[in-house]
C-alpha cells in the first residue's frame, strides 16, 4: 500500500505542481523519486509533527496543496491542536496521511498504536476521513482527496498486503459493496476489510451469505447507503480496528440514533483499553475476533441466532 501511495502521489504531483510533500522524518526510501524529481516540493520537517501541520497550513494559505505524512499516531494525536486550529478552522486543503494505523505497529507498543485516529480526525468539522482497505482503493481515493478544497485524513498500510476484488467503483463518500448477500450487512473500514472478505468467502461455502460493504469514507458517512440497507437488512455488523468511541461503529450508531432506525447494530472490535503485550497485529486481531477465523465464528453465530 505504501508503494501505491508513493506512486499515486508522484503521478498526481506530475499533473499538479501545487502538490507538496511534507514528512515528519519518516518514509525511508519511499519518496526517493518524489524528492529527486521535485526537490523543492519535498520537505522533511524533522521529528516535529506540530510544525509539520502548522507549516502545511501556511503553505496551503498561499495556494499549495500540502500532503503531510507520518505514522498515524504521530500524525493525528500529537499535532491535534495544529490540525484543528491551523488546518480545520480555516478549512485549508491539507491532506494528512497516517501510515500504519490501528494495530499495524502492534509490536512497537501503545506509542505506535493508532486506535483513536478516526475519532480525533472525525471530531474536526469539515474533515474528510478515509481509510482505504487495500492498494486499489488507495490509488483510486488519493487523487479524489487531492481534488478537495478542504482538509482530509487518509491512512496507508504497509507493503505487500493482500488486495481484494470487487466490481463496484471506488467513489469518495460512498460505501463500496464488496460481497452481495442478505440478512446481515457487514460494514468494515480500513485494512481489516481483507479479513472480512476472506471470512465471507469461507462462510459462503457453508451457505451463509452476509452482504459486505467497505466504508472507506467514514466522514462524510454515506447515509444513503445506510438508509437503503436498513430497509433490506435486520442487522448491521460493524467490524473495526479502532476504539469503540469515535470509530465506524460510533458513526453508524450516531446515524441510527439521528434517523431513529430500527436496525440492530452489532460491533466486533477491540475494547476501550490500551492494548498491552506488544503483540503482532494478527495476534491482537485474533484476541478481538477481527481475524478471518474469529469473524467466521462470530458471523455464523449471528446468522444462526433466532430473531435475526
Amino acid at each position, binding site marked *: 500500500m505504501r508503494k501505491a501511495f508513493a506512486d499515486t502521489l508522484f503521478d498526481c504531483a506530475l499533473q499538479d505542481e501545487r502538490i507538496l510533500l511534507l514528512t515528519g522524518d519518516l518514509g525511508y526510501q519511499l519518496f526517493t523519486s518524489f524528492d529527486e524529481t521535485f526537490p523543492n516540493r519535498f520537505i522533511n520537517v524533522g521529528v516535529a509533527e506540530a510544525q509539520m501541520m*502548522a507549516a502545511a497550513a501556511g503553505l496551503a*494559505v498561499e495556494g499549495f496543496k500540502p500532503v503531510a505524512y507520518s505514522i498515524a499516531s504521530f500524525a493525528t494525536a500529537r499535532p491535534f491542536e495544529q490540525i484543528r486550529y491551523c488546518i480545520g478552522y480555516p478549512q485549508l486543503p491539507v491532506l494528512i496521511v497516517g501510515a500504519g494505523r490501528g494495530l499495524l505497529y502492534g509490536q512497537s507498543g501503545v506509542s505506535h498504536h493508532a486506535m483513536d485516529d478516526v475519532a480525533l480526525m472525525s471530531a474536526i468539522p469539515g474533515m474528510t476521513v478515509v481509510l482505504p482497505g487495500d492498494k486499489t482503493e488507495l490509488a483510486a481515493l488519493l487523487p479524489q482527496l487531492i481534488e478537495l478544497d478542504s482538509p482530509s485524513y487518509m491512512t496507508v498500510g504497509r507493503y505487500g498486503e493482500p488486495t481484494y476484488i470487487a466490481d463496484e467503483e471506488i467513489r469518495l463518500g460512498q460505501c463500496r459493496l464488496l460481497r452481495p448477500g442478505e440478512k446481515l450487512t457487514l460494514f468494515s473500514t480500513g485494512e481489516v476489510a481483507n479479513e472480512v472478505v476472506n471470512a465471507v468467502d469461507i462462510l459462503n461455502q457453508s451457505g451463509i451469505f452476509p452482504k459486505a460493504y467497505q466504508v472507506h469514507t467514514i466522514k462524510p458517512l454515506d447515509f444513503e447507503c445506510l438508509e437503503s440497507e436498513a430497509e433490506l437488512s435486520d442487522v448491521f455488523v460493524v467490524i473495526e480496528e479502532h476504539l469503540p468511541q469515535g470509530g465506524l461503529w460510533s458513526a453508524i450508531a450516531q446515524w441510527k440514533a439521528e434517523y431513529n432506525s430500527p436496525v440492530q447494530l452489532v460491533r466486533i472490535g477491540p475494547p476501550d483499553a490500551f492494548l498491552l503485550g506488544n503483540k503482532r497485529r494478527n495476534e491482537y486481531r485474533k484476541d478481538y475476533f477481527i481475524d478471518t477465523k474469529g469473524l467466521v465464528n462470530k458471523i455464523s453465530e449471528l446468522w444462526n441466532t433466532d430473531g435475526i
Partner: protein
Amino acid sequence: MRKSAANLMTVEIASPAVLNMDLNQKGRQIRATCIQMAHDAKESHVKGALSCVDILVTLFNGVLKYDVENFANAHRDRFIFSKGHAASALYATLADVGIIPKTLLKSYGQSNSPLPSHPCKHMLKVLDWSSGSLGHGLGVGTGMAYALKLNHSSSRVFVLISDGECNEGSTWEAAQFAIANKLDNLIVIVDNNGSQSIGYTEDILGQANIAEKFGVFGWTTLECDGHSNSELFEAFQSTNIKQDRPSVIVAHTDPGKGLDFLSDHILWHYRTPSSHEVLLAKQQLDCNSLVEEL
C-alpha cells in the same frame, strides 16, 4: 484580481525625528483606544495590547507593504498577529491606517462583531491569519514564507509573537524549520513585555534572554526599545539585508508606559479598566481615543 506592484501603497518615511514624533502621537492615541475598547466591551488583556502598540504602529506606518484599496493584493507582505489576545491593539492600528473603518471599533468584543476578542479571519477578511491559541503563528508563518519563496515572490512574512508564547515548544520547532530552510523572508518580532497570564516570564520559565536563544538556533537577532519608533524602524531596516536566514527583533516593552496606574502587569492581564481609569489614561497619554473621535 491581481494588481501590479506599482499600485502598492508604501508609506513615505520622513526623517527619523519627524517619524518618531508623529508615530509617538499615534501610539499614545492607540493606547488610549485600547483602554477605552476594553472598558466598553468589558474585555481584558489590556496589558498585552498596550505593550505591542508601538510595534504595530511602526509596522503599519512604513515597514509592511500593503494596499489599503485591495488588501488581498498578492504582492503585500503577510502579517501574522500571533498573540491574538491583544487584538484590540491590532484593530485600533488597522483602523488608524484606514484598513478597517474606525466605526467598527465600537463593535469590539460584541457578539457577531468582525472584531472579536481574538482575531478571526472568517469574520474579518483583511486578516492574513486568525489567532488565539499561542504558539501557532510562527509555524504557519514559516509555511507562508516557504510558499512565497516557491512562488518567487518578494513579499515577506512578519510574525508578532509574545515572550510568553516562547513557552510553547511549537515556537522552537518552527524556529528550527525556518533556519533549516533559509527563510530570510521571515521576520519575527517578540513583544518582550516580561509578563504572562499569572506571573512574570522570568519567574515562570526563566527566559532571561530570548534573543540569545534565537541566536543559538542560528537566527539573525536584533534587540531594541519596543516603544521607540526610530529604534524599531532601524531594526526593521536591517532585516532588509538578505543573509540566508530569518531575523528576530526582540522588542523590549513596558505595558504600563505612560500610565502610572498600570504598574502591576499581572493584575492587568485580566482586569477591565474602570471609567475612572479610562479618564486617567486619556489625561496621562494626553489624547482622546479613536472611538471618541467618531
